[in-house]
Structures are given as C-alpha cells and as structure tokens.
C-alpha cells in the first residue's frame, strides 16, 4: 500500500478516508450536541476562540475526507450528493446542523419543560419557560372576545352547522351534483348569513343590510327563469325594486321585533371578538368580494369604454391605497357621507370596506385568467350563437376561474391575514384581544406567550388553506 495523499481523497484508500472522515464528523457533531444539551464543553482546555470554531473545523475536514465520488456505498453517495457537494456547501450544511442542534434545547425548554400549565393564577408562572396558564385562563376571550360566556354555545353551534352544511358537496350523489353550484353560490351564503345574523347577534343589527341580501339573492334566483334577452334590464331594475318593497312595504317595525327570535339575548357587534370574529369577517368578505371582483374583472374587459374606465378607476384606486387607510375611511369619513339618521354598524362598515378592497385584487386575478384564455374560445362561443352572459357563464368563466385558482387562494389568504387590521375601527379579533389582555394589570409580562399562541393558530389556518388550494389546483388541472 503506497502512501496516502491526505489532500486528495480517492477510492483506492476508501476505508481509511471513510473511517477517518466519519470519525471527525461524528466528533464535531457530538461536541455541539453535548455542549447544547448537557452544557459540557469538551474542548474547554483550548483558547476560547479555537474552542468555539473547533467543531466547524473538525466537521469540515471530516466532510472533506468522505467526499469521494462513486464510492460504491449507497448511503455515502447520497450524503455526498445532498449535503456535501463542495467545500462551500459542506460549511453551510455544518452550520445548519449546528444551528438546529443548538436551538432545540432552548425552544424545547421554553415550550414544554420549563413551562407551566397548571393553576389559574399568575403565581404558578415562576419558571423560565412559557406561561401557558395565561392562555388557559384567557382562552375564552381569545376565542370569543367579549361575547357573554353563557351565550357562546350560539357561536359554536353556528360554526358547526356551517361546517356541516358546507361539507354537503362531499356527500352529494350524482343526481344532485348539478345543483351544487347553485347551492354554494346562492343558498349556502344565505343560510350562513341568516345563521350569523339571527343566531350570533340574536337581534336586528343587520336588518337593513339583510333586506339588501335577501333582495339580491331572490332576484338572482328569479333571474334564472328570465329570458336572456331581458336579463340585463331585469338585473338593473328588479334588485333595487325588491329592496325598496322589502324595506318599506313588507317588513314593518313589528316584524323586526319578530325577527329577534324568542329567548335569545341580543349581543351587540362591539362585543364580538376573538378568533370567531376573524372567521366571521373572513367568511363574509370572502363571499362578497368574489362576485364584486368578478363583475369588475368583466367590466375591465368590456367593450363599452365608459364601463371599462369606471372599472379601471375602481380597481386601481383600491389597489393603490393601504387597507388601514380604507378602514380609517370607513371609520371616520364614511359616516359623513350618509344621511344623519342612517346608521350602519361598524362591523358591517368594516366588512364592506374589506370586501371592496379585496374585490379589486380578486378582479385583477380573474382578469389574468380571462386574458390567458385563447381568443378561439370567445369566437367559438359566439359562433354557436351565445350571447354575452351565456358565453361567459358557460364557456369563459369556468375555464378562466380554473386557471386562477392559485391566485384567488392567495388573495383569500391575504384576506385572512388582513383581518387583524380591524383594530382600526375598534373591533378586537384575536390579535386585538391579545393586546388587550397584555395590558391587564393582573397578567403583565406575558406578551410572548400570547403572540406565539396566535401565530401558531394563524399559521395552521393559512398553511392548511394554501395546501388545500394546491390540491384544488391539481384536481382541476386540465391539460390544454
């Protein structure tokens, strides 16, 4: 056996290099591991600076020795291919391994080992870890805001019912599949709205608002039976007329009293809050911003110049201003624009503001999908004698919406992440409740726990949504 050239590892001395390299690598990892988990410093006899860098140097030399191409050992080749392709990558890999090993003990001890879970006062939180007792005590406030404890079953019941009703699509037989779109676009939002309006508020807060919703939904349902020739004029006139009839001729004040449902206490929207408010706002804005956005996307591509300019102006205005100023506007400027006796609840104002804001983003996303469709689709639909609405509903929109699923999902994600901003109008969802709880004199000094808790919740929601949208994208992917 000839002498070994240590500067150039090769296959001829595979075993030597392998044993030496893995030993050095193992030693370096062991040193960091013992240091971080057991606070042992094996290299304490060395000067400070050298003791700090030693694992890195040892690991680097070790990885250099085992970097042998086509060694014939499967695991070694995999290791080399993935984390040890060259010197630079080896150093980065070592650094990342060290960071992970170093960060596990403090994180683990803060989250679990030194954390306190028991009890229901601040006194139990003496350790250096997190005080989950704080979350435990405040959990109802974080979930339901100032909603009375005795009434919280209403929120739970509504959400359970909405989730159950929303999952109808999974169980629908083939016979009912064709009605699903109608169900999700018209009936489900109506049911959801009534649930939240009657059940959670238990009072006529939204009543004026609800006339509009009922009028719009009724007119859409009737609209299916109107011949397409008159559809445009029908939609211009009937919803408004219905609204006026509902408001001034059908429902008198005494019906509002009836609307209160016996036995349910009225809870004003100012008391709503916490995570449930995040869900309510996200849900409503999601329902509203989609049709508005679709209308403006179509308007932006309309043949009529005036409609096009108005749509462009609308979209560019909302996209150019930050949401916080929009909410400011809804809080301080909007009441000035309404008749003096005309009062709109601040939650409704916030929902309108966020819906309009997000609608502009949805419009741009949908416009991208409309532009991506080849012109042949439009021409084919027209050559079949389809009118504008028929063409869009049966040919263009189904394809365009399929294309923009990721974009729409991103917009909805942004919507959920924007809900904390409603603190501007004085509504406190989960982040707002955290800030309130943080200033409670009995529970000072637990800001970190609260924010970590909220971050985990939001992360789970948003991550699940993005994964779901990815699945949808894969499901509806059609090769074109």
């Amino acid at each position, binding site marked *: 056996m000839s002498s070994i050239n240590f500067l150039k590892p090769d296959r001829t001395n595979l075993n030597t290099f392998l044993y030496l390299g893995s030993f050095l690598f193992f030693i370096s990892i062991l040193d960091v591991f013992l240091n971080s988990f057991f606070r042992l410093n094996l290299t304490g006899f060395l000067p400070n600076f050298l003791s700090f860098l030693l694992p890195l140097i040892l690991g680097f030399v070790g990885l250099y020795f085992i970097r042998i191409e086509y060694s014939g050992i499967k695991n070694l080749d995999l290791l080399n291919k*993935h984390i040890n392709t060259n010197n630079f990558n080896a150093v980065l890999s070592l650094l990342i391994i060290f960071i992970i090993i170093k960060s596990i003990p403090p994180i683990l001890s803060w989250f679990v080992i030194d954390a306190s879970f028991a009890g229901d006062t601040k006194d139990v939180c003496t350790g250096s870890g997190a005080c989950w007792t704080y979350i435990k005590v405040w959990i109802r406030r974080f979930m339901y805001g100032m909603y009375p404890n005795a009434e919280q079953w209403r929120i739970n019941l509504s959400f359970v019912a909405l989730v159950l009703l929303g999952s109808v699509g999974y169980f629908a037989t083939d016979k009912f599949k064709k009605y699903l779109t109608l169900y999700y676009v018209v009936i489900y939002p109506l049911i959801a709205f009534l649930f939240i309006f009657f059940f959670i508020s238990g009072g006529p807060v939204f009543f004026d608002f609800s006339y509009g919703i009922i009028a719009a939904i009724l007119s859409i349902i009737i609209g299916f039976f109107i011949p397409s020739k008159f559809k445009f004029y029908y939609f211009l006139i009937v919803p408004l007329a219905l609204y006026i009839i509902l408001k001034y001729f059908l429902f008198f004040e005494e019906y509002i009293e009836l609307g209160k449902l016996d036995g349910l206490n009225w809870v004003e929207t100012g008391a709503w809050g916490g995570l449930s408010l995040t869900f309510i706002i996200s849900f409503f804005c999601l329902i509203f911003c989609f049709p508005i956005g679709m209308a403006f996307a179509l308007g932006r591509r309309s043949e009529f110049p005036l409609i096009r300019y108005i749509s462009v102006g609308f979209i560019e205005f909302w996209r150019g*201003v*930050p949401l916080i100023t929009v909410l400011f506007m809804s809080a301080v*400027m909007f009441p000035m624009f309404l008749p*003096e006796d005309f009062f709109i609840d601040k939650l409704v104002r916030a929902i309108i503001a966020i819906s309009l804001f997000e609608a502009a983003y949805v419009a741009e996303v949908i416009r991208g999908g409309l532009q991506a469709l080849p012109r042949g689709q439009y021409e084919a639909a027209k050559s079949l004698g389809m009118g504008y609405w028929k063409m869009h509903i049966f040919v263009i929109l189904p394809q365009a919406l399929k294309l923009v699923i990721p974009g729409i999902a991103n917009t909805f994600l942004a919507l959920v992440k924007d809900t*904390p901003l409603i603190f501007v109008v004085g509504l406190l969802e989960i982040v707002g409740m955290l800030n309130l709880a943080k200033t409670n004199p009995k529970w000072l000094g637990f*800001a970190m726990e609260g924010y970590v808790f909220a971050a985990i919740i939001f992360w789970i929601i*948003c991550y699940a949504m993005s994964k779901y949208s990815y699945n949808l994208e894969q499901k509806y992917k059609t090769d074109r």
Partner: protein
Amino acid sequence: MNFKLKDIVPQLITVLAVVLVFGFFTYNAQINMENRGIDFGYGFLSQESSFDVQFSLIEYDGSHSYFRAYLVGLLNTILVSVIGIIIATILGVIVGIARLSPNYLINKFAAFYVEFFRNIPLLLQIFFWYFAALRALPLPQDAEAMFGVFFLTIKGLYVPAFIWQNFNIFFYSIIAAIIAIIVIRAHAKKVQENQGKQIPVFLISIGLIFILPLLSFLIGGVRLSFEVPVLKQLATTSFIYEGGVSLPPELIALTLSLSLYTATFIAECVRAGIQGVGKGQKEAAASIGLTPNQVLKLVIMPQALRIIIPPTTNQYLNLTKNSSLAAAIAYPDLVLVFAGTALMQTGKAIEIVSITMFTYLTLSISISILMNWYNKKIAIQEK
C-alpha cells in the same frame, strides 16, 4: 354611424348610477358638515400644529405647520419603505437562490423560512417584534457594546454618527465615479461589438468606485470622524446615550418584520423566475463554451429577470402600503402623524383621509411607473 340602443343604455345607466352615488354622498356630506359646523377646506395645512413627533428626519416641533407634520410623516414612511425594500430584496434573492440549491439542508431551511414567515399575519409579526422580542433587550445601562460602538438597548439601537468635513467633494467624487463607470461600460460594449475584445469592466468599476472617493480623502480634504454614543446618567435609575444616531425600537421592529415578511414573497418570485428559464438555455450556453459565470450573467439572469420583475414590483408596492401598519406600534409614519394625530386635532376627516389616500396612490403609481419603465427596458425587443 351605427348607434345602437343596446350599446348606449348600459353605459348610460352605469354612469348615472355612479354619478348618483357620488352625488348622494356629496349632498349628505354637505348637510352633515353644515349641521356640525365644520367648514371644508385645506387652509388648516398652514396652521400651527402644536403637537410633537417622536422621530423625525427633518426639523420639527409643535410650532411648525400641519403641512410640515405631513412631510415628517411622509418622510418616515419613505424611510421605512426604502430600508425595508433594500433588506427584503437582498434577503429574498438569497433565500430564493437557496431554495434551488442542490444541498438538501439549505433547500429545506429556506423552504421552512418561507412557509413560516409567509403564513403569519404581518401585524402579528410587528407586534411580536415590538412588544415581545425587543422588550427583552437590556436597559441602556446594562447594554453591552457590539464591536465597541453599537449599543442595542430596549430604547433602540445606538450607532455612531458620521461627522463629515467637505462632504460635497466626497459626494461629487462618488457621482464622478458612477459617471465614469457608465462611460466605460458603454465603451466596453462598443469595443466588444466591433473588435470582439473584452475589457474587464467589473474590476475597473470596482476600482473606480473605491479609488475616486479615496482620492477625495487624500487630496480633496475630506475628513470623516465618528461620534460614538456615550452613556449618560439622568437620574439614579435613568440612563440614556448621548451622541451618535439613535434608531427607535419602533423603526427596528417595523423594518425587521416588513423585510422578513416581504422577503418570503420575493424569494418565491426569484425561484419562479430562475426555474422559468428553460434547461435547454443553460445547456446551449454551456455548449458554445461560455463559463458558468458567463452563463449566469449573460443567459440565465437576463431571462429570469423578465419573469422576476413584474411580481417583485408588486411586492415593493405591498411593502410600501404595509408600512402603514406602523400606526399600530406608534411609529410616526404618515398614517399615525397625519391621519391619526392631526385628524384628532382638526377633525377634518374628509380632507385628511383624502390627502393620505392620494399620497399612497401617488407613491404606488410612481413606483409602478418606475418599474414598468425598467421592465420595458429589459423586455424582449421583438422585431
């Protein structure tokens, strides 16, 4: 002329509806303002503001006008946006490239970073840094110096101030260096097109940008000295640093969270852009004998940039708009100073909110015009 009723009526009705809504709003606004005795007008801008602002780039106190307060807020907004954009771009490009690394650990680390910071609301991140993380920093008297001159305390970051003599000459020298680099680049391009020779432009540029300012120190009489912050005792338990530049914790928390958050989006744009360049391009470039660096510089990057720039512009716009969240942690930006304090004092809701919105619109539109211009410059010139 083929006027059709069907073409005219929808437009007319839409316009009529818009006009009606606006008319209704204006009418109500007039009545409401009359009832409450508020008069409409922008005259208040020149009145004395009589409130103070914690952190300001220009000289400002209560005796200045509301317009000056507006400028203070605007400059603070721009400051946060510019710092945020720079950090987010650097971080985003690094993470985006790391996402494409063949190294499994680096790849997953970058993916973890992106998924983690992207899925948590920005406001929550700002609160976390400001109320939880930065509150854990030491008090001024306990702070340890970093590199002997930086002090990171609960009251902010204290850094040494630069004290210049003859700053003008230094500034001109930098401008001269930039102009020289542009001229040399143009010359090198011409030489390469005509004679096929390559001039080491990059080395010359680096040399110029260092040598000219250095010359200004040696010959031009430019002097630079540092003013290191010094701890000073105000009372028995109250300490502050004097001298140097202090960056308030609000600014640190805001830039940190804005850039960490936006960098995840920029990273995804960069990754998509580099992945969007076909594999064949790389192989073709290598097969005609370009070095790996040349492949990256001359083939991959120009094509990737075309895909990267439009979505990245959107992210810059988002960052600028998101900087308005400063109001939540009392960083004196445009929204807090103007739409907050000034609105409270004057009660001029319509004027102030409209000015604020108009300002953001202008900022957004100017960034998008700038980036559109750049995008057009590097886009494929089809003949």
